């Protein structure tokens, strides 16, 4: 379709630029403030006249943002690694091996989509206590793995089911058993969609707050979302350091996002449409 330059287009461009500024400027403002001294923040809010990279050192060490950050990376990495394996196995099974009762099993996985976190935290809390792992990293990882399964298995199973049958038949002729089919055909073909699903799950684990708040009391085990709470009360009026901590929380994820924004957006919207 031809896109013409008209008054309406100019007006909508102005509106959009205005909204983009409202969305992006606060982030830039935080980033700018993160390099300023407190005095400069109060006297010159919009410009930068001091340069204090030490804010980052303070936030990382005294504010313990470094510790929280590493904890979050660890928890997220382990969760996604376990999810990767079990989602591949589950979707291969439901999509290709199709054991008896596949229809029922698919519905069982689907039902996981409708459960709210308030409905499961209390029994999970007692499970962790009974297993003697309350307040540990394991107590975070186990339910986090479970949270991401329903949606990803649903999407991946549909995807695996639609893979061309000819490939499987040809592989079978060549003497490819069900394990070789999994590693040589199914996994390579599912990689792009799986990546999108895992990025979607990444966001869930990385942002999770409610369960972490319930489980983790130990300062040394807190994840970033939880740790930010202490951090905020500690540096409530040290604006430079506060913003440095925020910048550390925002920038790594932002960079990953800018590198593969289409997977991020694709995962969320695919989830939205299916859910």
């Amino acid at each position, binding site marked *: *379709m031809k*896109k013409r330059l008209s008054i309406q*287009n100019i007006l*909508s461009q102005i*509106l*959009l630029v205005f*909204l*983009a500024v409202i*969305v*992006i400027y*606060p982030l830039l*403002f935080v980033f700018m403030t993160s390099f300023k001294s407190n005095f400069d923040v109060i006297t010159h809010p*919009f410009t930068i006249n001091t340069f204090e990279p030490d804010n980052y050192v303070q936030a990382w060490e005294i504010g313990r943002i470094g510790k929280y950050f590493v904890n979050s990376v660890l928890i997220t990495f382990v969760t996604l690694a376990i999810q990767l394996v079990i989602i591949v196995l*589950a979707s*291969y*099974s439901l999509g290709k*091996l*199709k*054991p*008896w009762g596949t229809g029922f099993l698919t519905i*069982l*996985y689907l*039902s*996981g989509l*409708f*459960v*709210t*976190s*308030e*409905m*499961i*935290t*209390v*029994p999970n*809390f*007692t*499970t962790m206590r009974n297993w003697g792992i309350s307040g540990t990293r394991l107590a975070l990882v186990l339910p986090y*793995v*479970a949270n991401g*399964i329903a949606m990803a298995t649903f999407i991946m199973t549909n995807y695996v089911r639609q893979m061309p049958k000819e490939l499987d038949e040809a592989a079978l002729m060549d003497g490819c058993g*069900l394990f070789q089919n999994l590693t040589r055909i199914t996994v390579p073909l599912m990689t792009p969609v799986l990546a999108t699903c895992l990025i979607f799950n990444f966001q869930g684990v990385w*942002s999770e*707050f*409610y369960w972490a*708040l*319930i489980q983790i009391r130990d300062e040394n085990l807190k994840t*970033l*979302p939880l740790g*930010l709470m202490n951090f*905020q009360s500690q540096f409530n009026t040290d604006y430079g350091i506060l*913003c440095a901590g925020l910048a550390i929380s*925002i920038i790594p*994820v932002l960079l990953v*996002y800018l590198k593969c*924004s289409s997977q*991020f957006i694709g995962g969320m*919207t695919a989830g*939205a*449409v299916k*859910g």
Partner: protein
Amino acid sequence: MAGSITKVERNRKLWGYVFLIPSLFFLVMFILYPLVNSIFMSFTNWTGFNNDSYSFVGAKNYVDLFTKNPGFWNAMVINLVFAFVSTAIQTVLGFLLAFCVYYMTSGWQRFYKVALYIPVILPASVIAVMWRFMLSPDTGLVNVILRTMGLDNLCRAWVGDPSTALGTVIAVNTWQYVGFTMILFLIAMLNIPTEVIESAQMDGAGKFRQLLSFFIPLTASTTETNIILSITGGMKSFALFYMLTGGGPGTATTVVSMVIYNTAFVDFKFYRALAMATVLFVIILVLVLISRRIGHEAETNIE
């Protein structure tokens, strides 16, 4: 039954079960069992400390919740206001933005998609801490901008003032999610066959006319998806409230999930919290069903 199935086929199906074991373990252990257990235990007097000792109290917890717990219902009203107002603003604004972006070149489309989606990827707790700083009464960006523009009388302690606290959380929530709504609408609009729009343009239909006769009706199912996602998200919201306002001032922004959290993990009245969680779950389910129903009727009316 297995007689007609070859040995290889049978082998595949058995391995199928083996491959499901790990995911089923997680799903059943941490999602489905807790769900059933929660509903079951909401009919007992289980406190959480008397681990295995509880007795059935019938519907007592629910009766108490409906008759003796105004705090919960107060929170429910706040939650509903939050969910509905957020949804209305987000849906309308997201739609209009998508409509504006639709007529842009694909380069601009990509730019706005990526830019407006940035807040969506950030954890609610990061957003909350960031906006607490921006909204602080003396040095916060919002008040500083207002003062620079000479609008000193509009300056507020945004999250500390009972009259603006809820509105402020709604604004921050909209700031975070409007890009998501916009993208869902944009995808739906780009899926409309271009011939439809072109022939309308040929017939001299202006933008406004196109909006009414094509864009709104042809994206109806996306509107429904958006409304459902936004209402469920709004009813479950916790981290943003907990870290931006802490539920205050007073109980001006205390939402249901916060009441449930306090009842279960501060007061350790599990039985009460489970009844609340079940009621919230049912209310969310009903809201989803109503939205679907309305969406369905709207779609059939269009056809």
